[in-house]
């Protein structure tokens, strides 16, 4: 009996000892400190995004503090990992907003996480801005505190498809999408078929949707089916790492047809999958983007990314790094300009000020041009239809997500 008791104590102790190490309790924002929060997936299938996001925010923190801080106060960004698990993202937000008393939160990254985290942001009355979610309507459903520094995929698609049609003389397409990924499935089953119709492109498998599931190794049957349909182009609606599987299979079966997709495709990994297959997708940022601002950003961030273990040697800053960098910068701008005090007793008022600043924001100098937010909480900013071929992205069309297509970008 006593030995089993020791074992119980041992097992309980295992957990308790660990808790002791870090039982430091919440650190309250000192008056000379400005605290922001971020939710990124540093483990799980999107670990790469989360880790580069972390490096980006650390860089921003250092830049701001080196330049004298925010209104004389030191900037601190509390970054929490959500492990690509939506439920953890919600608790991250609760911790950031409730315990760490952050003024605003950057993140979460995925739409699935944003779907459950934004309602919490509303409940706790703190601004949360996603750096990557582009599933339609996610911020819109959670006004007024939810924002996304991304553009709704249907807006982007409206510019992407005409370019794609013109550039490759597309008259027919086949659509394949990841049915398990909410964003990809929405784009693949709703948005793209609609846009194709608007542009007079026939969807050859309109009555026979082709899908696969996140994590599937083999999409050969789907690709063979596409091959048999013999379309002019292929719509691949999937996260880049899944899209790699599809594009590799297309190459293997000799389906060398131009691919079009959503922002989910943008990554350097996808360019390596099949250099001979042209890929068209919208992006708000890409590493080789011309301009002083983006180039300085890339030049400063790239060496930092190289220090992180486990990332590919040739890694470049991603669109989501740019997005979260902009989110952080917007928050800091808001704190500076909207009279945010950063004092604990003003927390509620400060958060509201940041929200109101975001709502009214116009012409904020982002990396790729001015940024504002529309009524749905999504970004009004410039975007680029980029074409990836032979290992590099090349910008083809500059667009704007403003309702009229130009004002504000």
């Amino acid at each position, binding site marked *: 009996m006593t030995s089993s008791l020791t074992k*119980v104590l041992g*097992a309980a102790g295992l*957990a308790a000892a660990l*808790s002791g190490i870090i039982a430091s309790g919440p650190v309250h924002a000192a008056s000379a400190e400005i605290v922001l929060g971020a939710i990124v997936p540093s483990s799980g299938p999107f670990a790469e995004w989360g880790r580069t996001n972390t490096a980006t925010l650390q860089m921003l923190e250092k830049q701001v503090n080196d330049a004298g801080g925010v209104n004389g106060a030191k900037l601190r960004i509390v970054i929490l990992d959500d492990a690509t698990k939506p439920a953890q993202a919600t608790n991250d937000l609760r911790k950031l907003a409730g315990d760490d008393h952050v003024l605003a939160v950057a993140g979460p990254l995925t739409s699935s996480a944003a779907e459950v985290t934004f309602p919490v942001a509303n409940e706790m009355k703190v601004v949360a801005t996603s750096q990557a979610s582009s599933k339609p309507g996610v911020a819109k459903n959670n006004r007024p505190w939810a924002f996304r520094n991304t553009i709704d995929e249907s807006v982007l698609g409206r510019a992407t498809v005409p370019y794609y049609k013109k550039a490759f003389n597309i008259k027919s397409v086949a659509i394949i999408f990841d049915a398990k990924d909410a964003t990809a499935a929405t784009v693949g089953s709703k948005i793209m078929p609609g846009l194709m119709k608007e542009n007079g492109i026939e969807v050859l498998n309109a009555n026979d949707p082709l899908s696969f599931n996140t994590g599937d190794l083999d999409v050969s049957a789907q690709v063979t089916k596409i091959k048999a349909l013999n379309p002019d182009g292929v719509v691949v609606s999937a996260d880049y790492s899944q899209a790699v599987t599809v594009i590799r299979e297309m190459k293997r079966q000799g389906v060398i047809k131009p691919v079009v997709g959503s922002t989910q495709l943008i990554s350097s990994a996808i360019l390596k999958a099949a250099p001979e297959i042209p890929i068209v997708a919208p992006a708000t940022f890409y590493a080789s983007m011309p301009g002083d601002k983006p180039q300085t950003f890339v030049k400063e961030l790239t060496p930092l990314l190289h220090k992180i273990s486990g990332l590919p040697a040739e890694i470049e800053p991603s669109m989501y790094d740019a997005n979260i960098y902009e989110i952080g910068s917007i928050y800091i701008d808001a704190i500076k300009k909207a009279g945010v005090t950063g004092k604990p007793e003003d927390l509620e008022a400060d958060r509201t000020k940041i929200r109101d600043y975001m709502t009214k924001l116009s012409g904020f100098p982002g990396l790729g041009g001015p940024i504002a937010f529309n009524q749905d909480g999504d970004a009004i900013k410039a975007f680029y239809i980029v074409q990836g071929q032979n290992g590099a992205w090349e910008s083809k069309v500059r667009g704007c997500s403003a309702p009229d297509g130009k004002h504000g970008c």
Partner: protein
Amino acid sequence: MSMYYAGILSDIGILLLGALSVYIILATGQLSLGNAGFMGIGAYITSWLTVEAGLPITVALVIAALVSGAIGVAVGFPALRLKGIYLAMATLGFGEVVRSFLLNFAAMGGPEGFHGMHHISTGYIWTWAVSVLVLVMLIEASPIWLEIRAVRDDETAAGLVGLNATEIKVGAFGCGAAVAAIAGGLFAHHHVYIEPGNFSFERSVDLVLAVILGGSTVASGALAGAVMLVILPEYLRFLAEWRFAAFGALLIAMLLVRRQGLLDRALLRFAWRGSRA
């Protein structure tokens, strides 16, 4: 109480119910790796009832529990033919079939997920969690629990002394499915958004893990397991990217140190005597 701890507590409460659903089935010697499927059924039914039919959450949960319980009974009958790991694999298949169904269930969003639910409080979640836990603990003191233990231990002997193993095992499946549905319904209304991916094999395993880590022979083990499983990854945050690797290692270490789980009957008896001495 901080919102963060409230969130953590809500997660524990939901996981506790999910773990109890596994516990009830496991008590009869049946290992279910498909309870996330029942959670999914519960989550979708409850959400439909509150959002589309406008029913109050409690009524919706009860209806979902009944429907899921009936499905559990329907699953329980064929499950009688299977034992041990084979049953586990069949239930795994069941969970995947449910998830696959939900992905294709366009009426409630399919892969796009479903929203519109109202947020529920931590207190409401725990009212359910504590009620079900107390109910299970009361049943543990009842004659039927002796029968359940007998069936788990030696089904043939149990039959020969007059116990209806079929009724007990199928009944347990039904009850487990009903409790899982409640867990699912609460999950849906805690997060106010659901998608089929929420109810994957991974979650089924989490539920089993909570039961085994906490102790699979007493209902309070499910509570201990749920607390550990939710708190541990939070405590391990200081390890940064090694957090989950450490979590896996701790899981193995805990099984090595105490394979019967943190709590068992002998320990509770010991503690009970200790507290009276």
